[in-house]
């Protein structure tokens, strides 16, 4: 029964479950707060023996936090976890593993300089008198490697493996030894169909053996293929829990999106510009290839146009942005054209000379200069030394901050440029000399955005422009993006939030496994359609 007011649908209760099944894991009232934001509000979850339980939700819904709590990677602020009726408190991953909770992590956790075999047994090496028995380890693992279809020699270093094989090794690591609960976080994101179906066979075997499986995936068809029950999280709360046979894809997507799903399909906030496309786009990428990560990607963007990149984690979205900006090596044959003229962008400094700006999704690590104040964070990267100024094209050069004849940055120009940005982007700070780390996430993001804007870039690449930004600041950043496009900058936005892409972009490219699978006009599509294409 779908409650239209709250968009909650809880249809199973304890007795609905598989008859007589034993409860393996029960989590009650789990809460977690990061800083001032509570990301999980009292979540309950139970996993039965022999059950595949799907956990779904949009990015930021709290899935990872929940999984990390169950596997001992983070501690809950309150609530408790019981494993086979015993209350447990895991304060590290090993404790969870020893108690029988095994996890296939989403991000690969392999040691690249160790062999397949060494990685699989890391921390659990079979020993006799303190000496590792590699022969025994090899025997133990042979069947699992075979079942997973890993052909490589167990002595091969994992850094020499493909991403898919690395993911399979990660799976092997989790399923060796004894466990009662298996948590799988996007286990198939790098696997092809054949590898996926092999994994599903293994999952069925565990089901039969009474293991409780928590399965997280963006691929809805997989979930409907393999799961018995589904729990949907939205904004840190359970909004749907039902038997798979009692629900369908549309309803699950609706619970994931919540009330906003009806708003989004309305016309509000759609880009107003009708993009009259010129014969030659101002910026074009043709047949971009990059190792095993990106295959034959072609995109183009016009002056004043905002285009989007959509795709699940691991689809190559982020890597594409990096490749365009010169942070990632591209294969020969890739063409990047500015106004129809081929350019080589193999280094970020070359890209910035052509007036291309990149806003990273990793603000803390790759964005802000934490030791510098606000003014310097905005202005400094726009100051170039003499030799670099000479190589910069004339339009971009005129926007650089003035440097006096003695090579000293003009403090006056620096301040006035900063003040201009602070006003137009509404950066909330008490003084231009404040340290940038004192600002909220949203204001830090505005600082980075200002850094790009000050140079009036020709092309701006924005990766997750509103990650970790609150709702009010989000709108301000959207407005700033619109305004920048209005000034004629060509903008590429990569985002995991589909509503954001629909709000900002005229066209959206959907990536899967490093390939463009669809190019859609955002006026002619909606979030559900995009999510389905992304999931494949």
């Amino acid at each position, binding site marked *: 029964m779908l409650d239209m007011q709250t968009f909650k649908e809880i249809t199973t209760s304890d007795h609905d479950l598989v008859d007589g099944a034993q409860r393996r894991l029960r989590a009650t009232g789990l809460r977690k707060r990061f800083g001032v934001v509570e990301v999980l509000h009292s979540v309950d979850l139970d996993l039965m023996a022999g059950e595949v339980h799907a956990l779904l939700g949009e990015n930021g819904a709290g899935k990872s936090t929940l999984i990390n709590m169950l596997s001992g990677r983070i501690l809950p602020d309150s609530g408790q976890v019981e494993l086979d009726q015993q209350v447990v408190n895991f304060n*590290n*991953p*090993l404790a969870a*593993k020893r108690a029988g909770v095994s996890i296939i*992590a989403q991000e690969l*956790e*392999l*040691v*690249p*300089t*160790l062999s397949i075999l*060494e*990685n699989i047994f*890391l*921390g*659990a*090496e079979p*020993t006799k008198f*303190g*000496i*590792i028995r*590699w022969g025994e380890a090899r025997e133990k693992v042979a069947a699992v490697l075979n079942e997973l279809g890993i052909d490589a020699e167990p002595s091969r270093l994992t*850094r*020499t493996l493909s*991403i898919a094989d690395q993911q399979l090794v990660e799976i092997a*690591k989790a399923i060796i030894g004894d466990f009662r609960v298996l948590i799988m976080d996007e286990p198939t994101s790098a696997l092809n169909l054949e590898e996926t179906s092999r994994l599903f066979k293994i999952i069925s075997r565990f089901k039969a053996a009474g293991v409780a499986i928590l399965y997280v995936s963006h691929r809805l068809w997989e979930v409907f293929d393999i799961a018995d029950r589904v729990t949907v999280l939205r904004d840190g709360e359970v909004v749907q829990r039902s038997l798979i046979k009692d629900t369908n894809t549309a309803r699950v997507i609706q619970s994931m999106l919540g009330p906003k799903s009806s708003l989004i399909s309305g016309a509000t906030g759609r880009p107003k510009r009708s993009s009259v496309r010129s014969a030659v786009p101002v910026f074009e990428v043709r047949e971009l290839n*990059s*190792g*095993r*990560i990106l295959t034959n990607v072609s995109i183009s963007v016009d002056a004043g146009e905002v285009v989007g990149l959509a795709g699940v984690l691991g689809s190559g979205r982020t890597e594409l942005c990096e490749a365009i900006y010169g942070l*990632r*090596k591209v294969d020969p044959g890739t063409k990047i054209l500015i106004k129809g003229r081929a350019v080589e962008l193999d280094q970020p400094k070359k890209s910035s000379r052509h007036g291309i700006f990149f806003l990273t999704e990793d603000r803390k690590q790759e964005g802000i200069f934490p030791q510098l104040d606000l003014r310097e964070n905005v202005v400094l990267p726009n100051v170039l030394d003499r030799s670099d100024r000479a190589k910069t094209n004339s339009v971009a050069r005129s926007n650089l901050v003035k440097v006096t004849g003695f090579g000293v940055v003009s403090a006056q120009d620096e301040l006035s440029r900063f003040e201009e940005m602070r006003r137009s982007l509404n950066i909330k700070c008490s003084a231009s000399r404040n340290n940038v780390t004192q600002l909220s996430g949203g204001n830090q993001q505005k600082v980075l955005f200002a850094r790009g804007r000050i140079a009036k870039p020709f092309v701006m690449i924005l990766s997750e422009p509103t990650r970790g930004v609150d709702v009010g600041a989000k709108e301000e950043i959207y407005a700033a993006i619109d305004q920048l496009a209005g000034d004629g900058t060509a903008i590429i936005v990569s985002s995991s939030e589909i509503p954001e892409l629909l709000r900002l972009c005229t066209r959206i490219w959907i990536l899967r496994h490093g390939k463009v699978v669809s190019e859609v006009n955002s006026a002619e599509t909606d979030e559900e359609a995009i999510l389905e294409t992304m999931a494949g």
Partner: protein
Amino acid sequence: MFRSVLKSESLASLIALVVVAIVFTAINGRFLSRLNIEGIIVSASISAIVSLGMTFVIAMRALDLSVGSIMGFVAVIAATMLSHDVSLSIVIAISLLAAAGLGLANALLITWLRLPSFVATLASFSVILGLSLIITHGATVTIHNRTLSELVIGRIYGLVPSAALIAAVVFGVMAMLFFRTPFGRHVAATGGEARAAIGAGVNIPRITTGVFVISGALAGLGGIMTAGMLQNADSTIGSGAELMSIAVVVVGGTSLMGGRGNLPGTVLAGFLLSSIKSGLNVANVPSLYEGLVFGGILITALMVDGMRRTERRKGMLVV
């Protein structure tokens, strides 16, 4: 061809060793004399022992700059105790314990104060050197007792100096420890990808402590052996040994990026660099030039290490 040599670092060291022997013999036939060869074996054994400890440190992606000062300190206290007629076995036991204790102190600086190993061991280097100077007042302590030197340069069955046997035993134990025990594999895992190691339940402070205790103890062993070889000790005995052993480890094929350790390579490179040192001697190159030569070798080895890394990165864009 060049690439395959790069990959089999040990083979490269072996070839270089042969080339070095041929070149220096051509310059001065004395290079292959029994006395000179024995000298090379003793100093190479000491260098290999100290560098085997450093191999563990570098495999963990750390550095130990205090090994030279530990060698000097241990040599000085051993010599002082021997001159006071303390029995040799007690001298050796106390010296090795002291060296291991200094390694433990390094580990505590790193794990408790969370200092980078480079900084922590640079500081302890200075402290330990200062202690040695205070003990000796800057003077040289002569060892009159010959039992220690017999243990180092005495021949086994009249064949090779016993230092070689000590080095062989240390190599065997270290290789077993590194490749065949959970501790050794956890050292490599910590250096290769600390996050993955933590995820697998590796106790990184404990591993760090073990590694620096080993490095300290082996530096101490090297220090006692050096004192035995020279029949005297002063605080400068290990000066420059830290850079030398880093050079030996890198020439031996262990990357400064950590994650792997080539122990046989370290032993071979110890012999290679000791041969070069001795060769320069018999070729009458003034010892003033030694620093220049070994600095050059270290830079070359680091360049080769850098090239190997770029090779890998091109093959695997992701890691």
